[in-house]
């Protein structure tokens, strides 16, 4: 297998998952790129994650109380899952259908929404939108529980069209009103209050007595539409396919202009988007054929390092390298901390800033978040006892020439490419360190420090910020 093949597989696993540890890359080295794509698209082929130990030592995960713990647990799943696309697609839909904990402060429904994305994220656009419309967290977030037959609330109806399916310019104000009427009576069961015994779950309820059964005209069609009918009509529209494909392209392929600019800025790669729309529409909105097309496309393969890592990708990918936060939790590895780390980088999971979700690409980076990102990655290798460092050292072999150290580390960590400036600077460090004899017991501690420092230098580069 050529180095380019491995680079491509690593690229795929960074985009369709959260990166791969050297060991995980070993495990796919004999598989073809296309077979790896198929495995990713079929999470049912992979074994379930072993959660016995994480739940044994974080028993708070048994009850849905503080959302940081559960948001951090999600990052733990991103690190440890054998079904990376299942978690990645859940994160994708969380980006698109941004729902925040801070309004309802009801952790069980927030957890359930992510579980729904995990379960249906690779299914069908129509299914996904229907589940979303019945999701209690979304229902409360966009006030559909206040959408009564005699007193409509148009918040959900408006955002369904503007931010969740068609995008601005493809419908009228009247369409919003008519769609909202169709969702009257779509509410949820009142959960028991938080005190005195903690949170209780809730579920979707259709209150027939509060539904407007009158005739509606929506996007030129007339009938006694309910919510499902509205979603059926939305899914027939090319604008919906365009909207979903732009989101997908931005999330999986290449940083795009941000959503507020979509009505005035065309896609960066209109040809690719057109092809994606055709695939989606000709497959009745099925996600798997679309993602299969994307991951096997030349534009995807050519998109290496054209995307700034979102904080989850950066955190999970780095911790895969260190081998920490694994299946068996160690002292100090409190999963709730992972939520805090993402938050200071600008991505508080389950708590996006607005219904528009997070802005991505270069907007992840500012003076503050860049510091957090670089420091986080570098600091993970301050601890010389992390298992990932031992693994890197063992893969370097017995002797490493100064001229080989950087290339070998880049191969193990990535395979990973640096620009000339960074490459030259790190080569100077390698020259200063000199040849390393890793069999020499007397100098083993010093040599390990040299290697850890080289890894830290690589993780501190501009290039490491990109996926």
């Amino acid at each position, binding site marked *: 297998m050529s180095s380019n093949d491995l680079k491509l597989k690593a690229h795929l696993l960074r985009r369709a998952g959260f990166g791969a540890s050297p060991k995980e890359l070993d495990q796919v080295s004999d598989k073809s790129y296309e077979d790896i794509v198929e495995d990713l698209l079929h999470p049912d082929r992979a074994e379930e994650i072993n959660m016995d130990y994480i739940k044994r030592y974080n028993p708070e995960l048994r*009850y849905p109380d503080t959302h940081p713990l559960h948001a951090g647990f999600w990052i733990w799943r991103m690190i440890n899952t054998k079904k990376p696309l299942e978690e990645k697609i859940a994160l994708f839909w969380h980006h698109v259908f941004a729902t925040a904990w801070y309004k309802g402060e009801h952790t069980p429904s927030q957890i359930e929404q992510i579980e729904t994305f995990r379960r249906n994220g690779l299914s069908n656009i129509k299914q996904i939108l229907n589940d979303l419309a019945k999701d209690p967290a979304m229902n409360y977030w966009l006030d559909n529980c206040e959408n009564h037959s005699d007193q409509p609330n148009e918040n959900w109806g408006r955002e369904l069209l503007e931010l969740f399916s068609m995008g601005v310019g493809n419908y009228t104000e009247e369409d919003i009103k008519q769609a909202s009427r169709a969702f009257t009576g779509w509410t949820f*069961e009142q959960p*028991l*209050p938080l*005190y*005195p*015994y903690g949170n209780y779950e809730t579920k979707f309820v259709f209150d027939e007595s509060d539904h407007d059964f009158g005739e509606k005209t929506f996007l030129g069609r007339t009938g006694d539409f309910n919510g499902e009918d509205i979603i059926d009509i939305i899914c027939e529209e090319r604008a919906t396919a365009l909207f979903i494909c732009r989101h997908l392209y931005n999330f999986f392929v290449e940083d795009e202009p941000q959503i507020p600019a979509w009505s005035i800025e065309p896609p960066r790669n209109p040809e690719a988007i057109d092809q994606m729309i055709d695939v989606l529409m000709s497959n009745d909105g099925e996600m798997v054929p679309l993602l299969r097309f994307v991951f096997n496309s030349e534009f995807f393969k050519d998109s290496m390092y054209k995307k700034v890592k979102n904080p989850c990708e950066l955190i999970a990918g780095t911790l895969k390298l260190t081998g920490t936060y694994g299946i068996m939790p160690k002292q100090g590895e409190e999963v709730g901390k992972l939520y805090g780390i993402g938050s200071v980088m600008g991505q508080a999971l389950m708590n996006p800033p607005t219904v528009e979700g997070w802005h991505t690409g270069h907007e992840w980076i500012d003076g503050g978040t860049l510091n957090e990102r670089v420091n986080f990655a570098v600091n993970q290798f301050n601890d010389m006892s992390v298992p990932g460092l031992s693994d890197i050292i063992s893969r370097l072999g017995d002797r490493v020439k100064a001229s080989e150290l950087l290339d070998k580390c880049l191969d193990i960590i990535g395979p990973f490419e640096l620009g000339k400036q960074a490459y030259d600077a790190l080569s100077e460090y390698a020259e200063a360190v000199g040849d390393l004899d890793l069999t020499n017991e007397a100098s083993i501690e010093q040599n390990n420090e040299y290697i850890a420092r080289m890894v830290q230098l690589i993780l501190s580069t501009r290039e490491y910020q990109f996926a």
Partner: protein
Amino acid sequence: MTTTSIPYDLLRSGFPYYMTLGQRRVTTAPVDIGFGKENIYVLTKGGLGTQIRVLNWEDENLGVRGGTDLFQWPAGLLVDEEENLYVSDEAKDCLVIMNKDGEHIQTWGESGSDEGQLNRPSSLAFDLEGNIFISDTMNHRIQKFTRDGKFLQSIGEMGTGDGQFDMPWGISVDQLGNLYVADWRNDRVQKFDESGNFVFSLGSSGSEKGQFKRPTAVTVDNHGDIYVSDAENDRVQLFNKDLKYIQSFHGNATLSPSGQQYILANAVTLRLRSMADFEKTQRLDAPMMVKVDDEFRLFILDYGNHRIQIYKKDAVELSKEQIAPEMRNPILFTT
């Protein structure tokens, strides 16, 4: 109803719900419980409080003992005759001892897998001489120490056979000195005699009667009845001394005194509670620990609901002469 010797059999009148103690932010995420002369000590673990909460029988909050300055991942609690408090710490592999006012007396324990060393110590139990059994979870064994930390005995090893364990958790000692172990990842309970010899294994993996899904604790009352916290099945199962399944507890709670006081003072909470499905509020959610006292009160730490549900056995002790001889087969002529 108290007893000093195990009766031949029981007329089981019932096992009614008795009362509930605690609430969120007072007994958040309770993992173990111990009893003083008047006080009830509840060990809690998690972001909303890692400490020992002290309550009385009126459910009044009398403050806390210990905290993260003394232990990080507390798992087990023992209270001795002086009301000294013993807490195992799974993060630091040690046992922390405080007096009843929370003043630190001693910490002992050392990480490792050699005899006398600990790897994630969890549940605790006194033997009949007052020595301490510790569930040495990640060493897959039970070890016995004197109260000041001198190693005395080790029972078991990693495995699935008789007398072997896979991450043992809750332990208990009966009035005859037998040791019971919730063999967590093997989904069973094992019994050992006073010398540490294997006696029996109870249960298998599953959700049927007599099966367990990650049992976290076991306790035995003075009738020889065995109670198992079947945590992932959200129930506690009761077996008699002959290992016959008797019944399950799924939760039948009413409001604790403190919970009732809270709700009555909050009009919105009152309204929301009246709008909600009431059924759910009674049930157990991940019962983490189960204990029984000499008065046959059963304490279930209803972990996911931040409270302690208490039940009280109502039974008549029977002599051999009072009950017909055992039958080999069932009969339809039931008189």
